[in-house]
């Protein structure tokens, strides 16, 4: 799949995810339709068979993520897309992906919850679930784009992180982002980096599927390549065989954590606007970030020294870098389309002298620049 000349397209956020995934080299998609993510499955159903890739609509979301993990172990770059109810159903098997260190990408186009909630309305209320949704100890990676362009690039980045660290990566978008159409230039082949999982370079017999390496990431062979390893969701040793030995258990769980913790700088990413001289900052992600930039523009017109920070990586948040950014800041507003989720994390991370305020909306509507502007003026 190569793209020669600059192609400008009007794409829905959901479609941009599809093209981003194709750019990253997705070979397998399994999913079950759910509003507002369905266009991703529909795009994949259209595009993948044309390119020799594999598409399957499974019987449910549990089966979808299972098939994705199966395909990933058979060597494919694989993904699924869903929304809240489906994301909840996938949790058990997402845990299996963590445990078995299977690279794959899960896009959650968020809608209002809990439960069936508001299928056609926006929310950002699965933020904490993306970190803590499945049982047990593990470390999650989740990224959050805010435009069609970022839907494309963050999907690419999600695949890269997933392959790089042998771990599932979650892309959190939302209903408005998924359905809005935006003009964007499709990156040329080579313009964005595309990462593939590291393959083993040892003889078949020496291969250990969960080998403890200095980076804590193990090279990954695929089914059918002569390695014949075992994969299990039971806590296992380096060969994938179930273990009950406390040291081996701890080693395994530490591996899951350290392979991410050690590379936080490589994983996290922020966009900042007008932060150089700011005393007040607005932290927001996804759709809300755009309202925040608009609000900052508006506030600057009123000579208010405010800036905006948009973390692209929500989990892990990158607390060292964030704390650095907040050092000159007296007041920070965390704007989210929920009752307050990432704000808990910011509270924990913010320097002592930085006061943290929460701006929340959870009525199914987008956050407007005026709301943010009002809050800025309120906390001043």
């Amino acid at each position, binding site marked *: 799949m190569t793209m020669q000349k600059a192609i400008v397209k009007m794409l829905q956020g959901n479609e941009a995810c599809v093209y981003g995934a194709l750019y990253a080299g997705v070979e*397998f998609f399994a999913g079950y339709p759910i509003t507002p993510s369905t266009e991703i499955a529909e795009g994949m159903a259209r595009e993948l068979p044309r390119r020799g890739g594999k598409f399957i609509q*499974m*019987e449910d979301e549990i089966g979808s993520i299972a*098939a994705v993990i*199966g395909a990933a172990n*058979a060597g494919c770059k694989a993904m699924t897309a869903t929304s809240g109810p489906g994301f909840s159903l996938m949790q058990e*098997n997402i845990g299996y992906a963590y445990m078995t260190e299977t690279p794959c990408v899960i896009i959650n186009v968020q809608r209002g919850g809990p439960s069936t909630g508001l299928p056609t309305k926006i929310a950002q209320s699965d933020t904490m679930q993306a970190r803590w949704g499945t049982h047990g100890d593990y470390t999650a990676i989740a990224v959050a784009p805010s435009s069609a362009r970022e839907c494309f690039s963050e999907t690419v980045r999600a695949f890269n992180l997933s392959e790089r660290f042998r771990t599932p990566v979650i892309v959190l978008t939302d209903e408005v982002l998924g359905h809005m159409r935006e003009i964007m230039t499709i990156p040329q082949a080579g313009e964005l980096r595309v990462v593939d999982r590291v393959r083993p370079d040892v003889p078949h017999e020496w291969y250990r599927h969960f080998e403890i390496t200095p980076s804590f990431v193990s090279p990954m062979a695929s089914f*059918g390549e002569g390695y*014949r390893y075992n994969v299990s969701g039971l806590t296992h040793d380096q060969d994938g*065989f179930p273990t009950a030995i406390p040291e081996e258990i701890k080693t395994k769980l530490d591996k899951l954590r350290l392979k991410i913790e050690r590379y936080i700088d490589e994983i996290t990413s922020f966009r900042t606007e007008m932060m150089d001289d700011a005393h007040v900052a607005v932290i927001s992600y996804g759709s809300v970030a755009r309202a925040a930039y608009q609000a900052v523009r508006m506030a600057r017109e009123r000579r208010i020294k405010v800036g905006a920070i948009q973390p692209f990586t929500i989990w892990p948040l990158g607390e060292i870098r964030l704390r650095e950014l907040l050092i000159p800041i007296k007041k920070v507003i965390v704007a989210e389309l929920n009752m307050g989720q990432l704000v808990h994390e910011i509270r924990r991370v913010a320097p002592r002298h930085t006061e943290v305020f929460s701006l929340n909306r959870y009525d199914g509507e987008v956050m407007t620049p005026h709301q943010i502007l009002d809050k800025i003026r309120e906390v001043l």
Partner: protein
Amino acid sequence: MTHQPLQSEVTHHYLRPKKKFPNVWCAGCGNGIVMGALIRAIDKLGLDKNDVAVISGIGCSSRMPVYLDFNTLHTTHGRALAFATGVKIAKPQMKVIVITGDGDALAIGGNHFIHACRRNIDITAVLINNKIYGMTGGQFAPTTPGGMIATTAPHGNYEKQFDVVKLAIGAGASYVARGTVYHVTQLEKLITGGLRKKGFALIDAFSNCHTYYGRMNREGDAVAMIRWFKKHAMPVEAAARIPPEKLKDKFITGLIHETDATEFCEEYHWLVDRLSGKEAEK
């Protein structure tokens, strides 16, 4: 290759070199007998170990892949067929085998089971049917006969059962067979047939869980339970010739149902071929 191994040693060539034996199963558990039959079937077909994937869920039976020197995926409870679907579609050239239990396949995994049947995807599923949840200690399964005792049916089971064969046929499977751990040669043949079949093949393998089912229901030890299979099995060919009243306490074994239908991955492949001329449109 030159040294043709003895038939009785064949199994050893397919056991995982790194995995310690003996296996986790209780002494006399039929799971090991099924494992032997499976290995011999694979060996007879001359499959390359690298081209075989064995996928299971959770249960005593589902522990089997750990011991087998193939590409093995020990997944979550009930989901083996869904994982296997992903593997098969991703690498259609591989032989994909699912080992599952009656609880794994028919209780929590019922949905993936009927959809694998419906899609007629080329997977061979060996369902080790011991009529109980073995691994969790003897709760009743959707196959536990009425009146039987189980830890969650301490007063006797009042639920009705699935007839696995009927369910699979109703859902659209193209190869449906039943064997037992007593009839181990037949079992091997049925598995071989399933592996040869292009499409979804189910082998319902009756097995013994004397540790729970047997003990709670006074059906005796492994020997007694396996003898029961010997006594009550009725080959499908013979059953056709026998008056129904004589079949009352029997169960049918053999290849019970086979149809020809196109296979899922094949259909998908044709689609890709058909579209490959259309790449123009991006």
